[in-house]
Structure formats: structure tokens, C-alpha cells
């Protein structure tokens, strides 16, 4: 019987607000609405002063993947009502209880730190879309207008004029480099404009959020995908801030969501000791940072 894990809680008795406290290994003390995921009861496996919330998994549960993500989320959110929860990534499954307890032992300090840091806090998300093509077109228009301005004096004459394929004296290499250079300048300006917009938008929440995670330009149009960690008692301040932001005129479109379990703010410092562990992200991330892409 494999074990599916939903999250880690700080099972401090004073904090429990669900009608009946958890009892290990049984669902006799369980709040009915927490049954699910293949109809298996949800219960806690304690480890020292914390607990892992789990349910047993049917070996034949092939459908687990996408069908259950909503259930997973529902259970984690239900837990949030009574506890501080570190939500597990979807599809974290253990072969045996022993494996699960090893994991809890391995990450215990990390879990304790995160539980303390995330106590009484929730996550809000914001995504911002802008019309990348329109923004770039504006930049191109400005670029053509300012071709002969003093800033461009430093550039060789070759690049002051845009690419011109109709002139037969211009070699393909010249045309090529002019086009590439123009693209480069436009892209640079585009990135700077993105940073300016992000700064403005992010400022709305800086005073209210404890922590934030920003992902810029995941696609050309998806200007910003951000998550904010907010104290529960400041939720309304946060909502007010995005009401204001929502109404500002301009090219930006907004998507707000929350409160969520603090998915984006769980930080684990320990890495598995397995020699096999190869972190592609880490390595490529370091490579990209040196190139300043």
C-alpha cells in the first residue's frame, strides 16, 4: 500500500479548530469532509511535534494524475482552516511508512523553520498580461524617429541606417548584422519597459506582503506571474490594493487569485544526498546567470 502525502502540519493542540482532533492511523476522529482521494480516509502520521497528512493509495489508481489534483487542493485548503500547512507538491507518494518517516526526519529542521515562518500567512497570486506586439511596435516607431539623435553618434554609420535590401551595394552580411542589431536594440528596450511596468505594479503590494516571488516574461505577453506572502489579518488590505490596481488605465490586464496555501514560499535547504541527484535546473541556471540573458 503506497502512501499519498498532502502536506505537513504543525499539530499543536491549541491551534486545532476542527471539531475533533486527529487520531493516528484511524479515521474515527476525522472530520468527514476530509475523506477522499480514491475514497481513502485522510489521516495524520505524526513525527515528533509535526505531522504528515496522508491517505493510502490503491495500487491500481492510474487515474490519479489529473483527476485528483482538485481533490489534493481541496484537502490542503481544508487543512489550512485549522493548521499551518506546508503543501506537498502534487503526486508525492511513498512506498512505505518507513520511507515517509525517513523523509520527515531528513527534512525536520526545514519543516519546522517553514512552519514557523508561514504561520498565519497565506499566498496571493497575480498575473499580468500586456500586448507585446503593440509594445514592440511602439518601440520600433520611436527607434526610427530617433535614428539621428545624439545618442546614436557613438555607433558606426553602418548601423545608423536600418537594413536596406533594395540597395545592391549592401552585402548580405551587412544587411544581416543591421537586422540583428535592430532586433537587439528593440529587445533591449522591450525588456527595460517590462522592468518599468513590473516595478510599478509590484509597488502596490510591497508594503503589504512579507515576501514575494516574481516571474517576469514567462511568455512575451505574460509580463508578470507573481506570488505574495501575506499575513492572514492583512488579507483585506491586499485585496484593496488590487482593487485599486485593477482600475488603473493602460495596456495591462490582471488576474488575481487567492488566498492559496503557501506553495511558493516553502524553502527546503537540504538536498538529498543521493549521488544520483542531478539538478539540471541548477546547472543551467548558473550558466544562464553568467551570460546575463
Amino acid at each position, binding site marked *: 500500500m503506497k502512501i499519498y502525502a498532502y502536506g505537513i502540519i504543525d499539530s499543536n493542540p491549541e491551534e486545532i479548530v476542527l471539531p475533533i482532533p486527529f487520531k493516528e492511523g484511524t479515521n474515527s476522529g476525522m472530520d468527514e469532509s476530509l475523506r477522499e482521494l480514491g475514497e481513502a480516509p485522510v489521516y495524520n502520521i505524526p513525527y515528533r511535534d509535526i505531522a504528515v497528512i496522508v491517505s493510502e493509495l490503491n495500487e491500481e489508481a492510474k487515474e490519479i*494524475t*489529473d483527476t485528483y489534483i482538485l481533490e489534493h487542493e481541496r484537502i490542503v*485548503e481544508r487543512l*489550512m*482552516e485549522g493548521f499551518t500547512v506546508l503543501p506537498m507538491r502534487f503526486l508525492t507518494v511513498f512506498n512505505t511508512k518507513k520511507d515517509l518517516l525517513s523523509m520527515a526526519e531528513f527534512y525536520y529542521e526545514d519543516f519546522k523553520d517553514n512552519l514557523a515562518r508561514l504561520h498565519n500567512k*497565506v499566498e496571493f497570486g497575480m*498575473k499580468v*498580461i500586456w500586448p507585446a506586439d503593440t509594445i514592440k511596435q511602439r518601440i520600433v516607431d520611436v527607434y526610427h524617429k530617433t535614428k539621428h539623435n545624439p545618442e546614436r553618434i*557613438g*555607433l*558606426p*554609420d*553602418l*548601423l545608423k541606417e536600418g537594413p536596406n535590401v533594395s540597395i545592391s551595394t549592401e*552585402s*548580405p*552580411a*551587412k544587411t*544581416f*548584422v*543591421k537586422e*540583428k*542589431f535592430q532586433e*537587439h*536594440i528593440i529587445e533591449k528596450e522591450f525588456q527595460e519597459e517590462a522592468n518599468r511596468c513590473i516595478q510599478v505594479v509590484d509597488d502596490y503590494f510591497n508594503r503589504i506582503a512579507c515576501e514575494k516571488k516574481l*516571474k517576469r*516574461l*514567462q*511568455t512575451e*505577453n*505574460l509580463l508578470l*506571474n507573481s506570488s505574495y506572502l501575506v499575513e*492572514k489579518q492583512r*488579507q483585506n488590505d491586499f*485585496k484593496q490594493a488590487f482593487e485599486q490596481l*485593477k482600475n488603473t488605465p493602460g495596456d495591462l*490586464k*490582471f*488576474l*488575481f*487569485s*487567492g*488566498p*492559496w496555501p503557501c506553495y511558493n514560499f516553502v524553502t527546503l535547504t537540504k538536498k538529498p544526498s543521493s549521488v544520483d541527484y542531478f539538478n*539540471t*535546473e541548477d546547472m*543551467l*541556471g548558473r550558466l*544562464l546567470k553568467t*551570460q546575463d*540573458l
Partner: protein
Amino acid sequence: MTMERIIETDSESAFIEEIEKVQDVLPKRIDANSKNVEKGLAKLVLTLVELIRKLLEKQAMRRIEGGSLSEEEIEGIGETLMKLENKMKELKEIFGLKDEELNLNLGPLGDLM
């Protein structure tokens, strides 16, 4: 304190479109057969070559922007970059790969290109 989750936007379609680009919402089934294995290898290799090529281009543009290069040098760079780009186009054709296929998703770091 009960917290009711809200998800609010007035542009659902636009967001669905962009977010779906970022996530592969629908699991893709990749068949394992020998033909695909080769293509998979070519993809991996060419993705990395593209990465290097684009880095080189970027570096070149920065140097040009810096203003310290002569016209001849700039044209020379153009020549080289052009050849590299054409070579990559050839290779993509040979392996039947499109630009979108040579992209690596680095999770939290976004896409490679």
C-alpha cells in the same frame, strides 16, 4: 477566519492562452521506438547548439553596441553569424525539427529561449 478563495479577471481567454503556453496542461504521450530515440538525441544536441549560437549572437550585439568595433569588423561578425544561422537552419531541416521543438523548459527559470 474562513478564507474564500477568489480568482478574478476580466480577460479569461487571454490568460488561458498565455498560461497554457507556459504549462503543458495536457500530458503528452511520447512513444518509445528507435526512430524517435534518434530524433530525441538530435533535439537535445541541437538545442544546446542553438543555446550557444544565441549566446554568441547576443555577445556580438553587445560588443557592437559598445562602439569599439570598426565597420569591417562589424561586417565580419555579420558574415560569421549569418553562416552560423544558415548552418542551423540546414541541420534543423535535416532532422525535421522546428524552432519550437528546440526549446528547453527549465521550470522556475522559464524557457531557455
